[in-house]
């Protein structure tokens, strides 16, 4: 198996007795756009801060580009190759947009002047305005410009489209698609399942400090299905469902079943129940997400 650009093993972090990460095993394949999902407080930002070397883990290990993030020199080397947008999107408030860009540029030898110009125009950023006077959305755009222009091999973005209007969101997602076509890996957290479903090819769902679902989005969608079983008279249920049934809900003479694997076997089992007729439906990422974070 090819090593992931990001790999964590049994990563743990506790804050004042509260376990934020409880053995996180994460693997982000090279060249992917990885959507990192989870409810508020699930551990997304903690994970990102650990990867960036901004926090120290209490247990387990994390590697980026194969280098452990805990090694002091490693963290610096890693940060050179990463573009990072934090949740709070902090910038020097007293500088103008133009000054921030000129200040940032020399830190990155692979700086992409072409992309810088492109984003300046696309995001309609006023170069002479002070950062302190920018709206939240404008600040996000500036942060994205600074991050995406630096020619990074890996982008780690904590809710990159948070606070952006739909048009700007579309622009950012389109640029992420373009940048990935050039070989960059993108790891981003988001609450917008629709945008994740659009742009991500891999996803991970974190809940209470553990990764509970992970994989290629197409594979997950192929594996998961909803079965709708309608009964002619009364609802029958087997003593034990085949493994892979995540959830069963009864509604009148109908059973609605969410299956995460063995869908064919489960459909056979449902068809063998007296008076049943079975239909199969694809599921959305939203259904997969809600099912897992609610039942966990």
């Amino acid at each position, binding site marked *: 198996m090819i090593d992931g650009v990001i790999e964590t093993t049994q990563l743990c972090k506790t804050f004042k007795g509260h376990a934020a990460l409880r053995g996180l095993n994460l693997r982000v394949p090279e060249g992917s756009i990885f959507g990192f999902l989870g409810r508020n407080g699930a551990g997304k930002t903690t994970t990102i801060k650990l990867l960036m070397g901004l926090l120290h883990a209490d247990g387990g290990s994390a590697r980026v580009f194969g280098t452990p993030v805990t090694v002091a020199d490693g963290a610096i080397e890693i940060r050179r190759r990463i573009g990072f947008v934090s949740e709070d999107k902090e910038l020097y408030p007293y500088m103008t947009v133009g000054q921030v860009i000129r200040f940032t540029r020399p830190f990155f030898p692979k700086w992409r002047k072409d992309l810088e110009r492109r984003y300046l125009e696309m995001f309609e950023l006023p170069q002479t305005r002070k950062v302190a006077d920018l709206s939240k959305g404008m600040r996000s755009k500036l942060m994205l410009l600074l991050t995406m222009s630096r020619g990074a091999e890996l982008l780690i973005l904590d809710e990159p489209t948070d606070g952006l209007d739909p048009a700007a969101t579309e622009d950012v997602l389109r640029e992420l698609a373009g940048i990935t076509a050039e070989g960059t890996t993108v790891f981003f957290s988001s609450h917008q399942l629709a945008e994740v479903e659009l742009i991500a090819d891999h996803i991970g769902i974190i809940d209470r400090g553990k990764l509970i679902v992970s994989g290629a989005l197409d594979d997950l969608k192929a594996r998961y299905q909803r079965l709708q079983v309608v009964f002619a008279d009364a609802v029958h249920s087997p003593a034990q469902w085949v493994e892979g049934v995540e959830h069963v809900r009864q509604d009148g003479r109908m059973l609605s079943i969410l299956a995460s694997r063995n869908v*064919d076997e489960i459909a056979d089992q449902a068809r063998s129940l007296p008076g049943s007729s079975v239909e199969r439906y694809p599921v959305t990422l939203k259904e997969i997400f809600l099912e897992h974070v609610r039942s966990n």
Partner: protein
Amino acid sequence: MIFRLSPSSGVPLYFQLMEQIKHAVEISALRAGDQLPTIRKMAEDLVMNPNTVLRAYRELEHQGIVELKHGSGAFIRETADGRARVMRKAQGIVESAIERLASLGLTEDEIRRAFDNELAQLSAGKHAGKAKL
């Protein structure tokens, strides 16, 4: 050529893209020798993952619809036209089936469900050959 994907439909995006390209061939919007947009262009136009576009192109190559030429892109193959003729024949069959179902009083949604359901059973390998309506 306009492709439109619906990410929340539950159908994998690479599959949706494949279907739409095949459809474009069937209706002769794309002909043998025509070049598909580059992976990057397609990804940006549709705001989708380039790896997903690549997967769709590779599957289409596997099915003999397109030819991937290294460095120059994806082209519709000659044989795809033959496939398109078969599909036009299929269209006629489906059309008459739908007319018969409609004459039984089935609505559009009911017909669609009947088709979807039969196809699902077929792909599950449990097709008993009897229509269940």
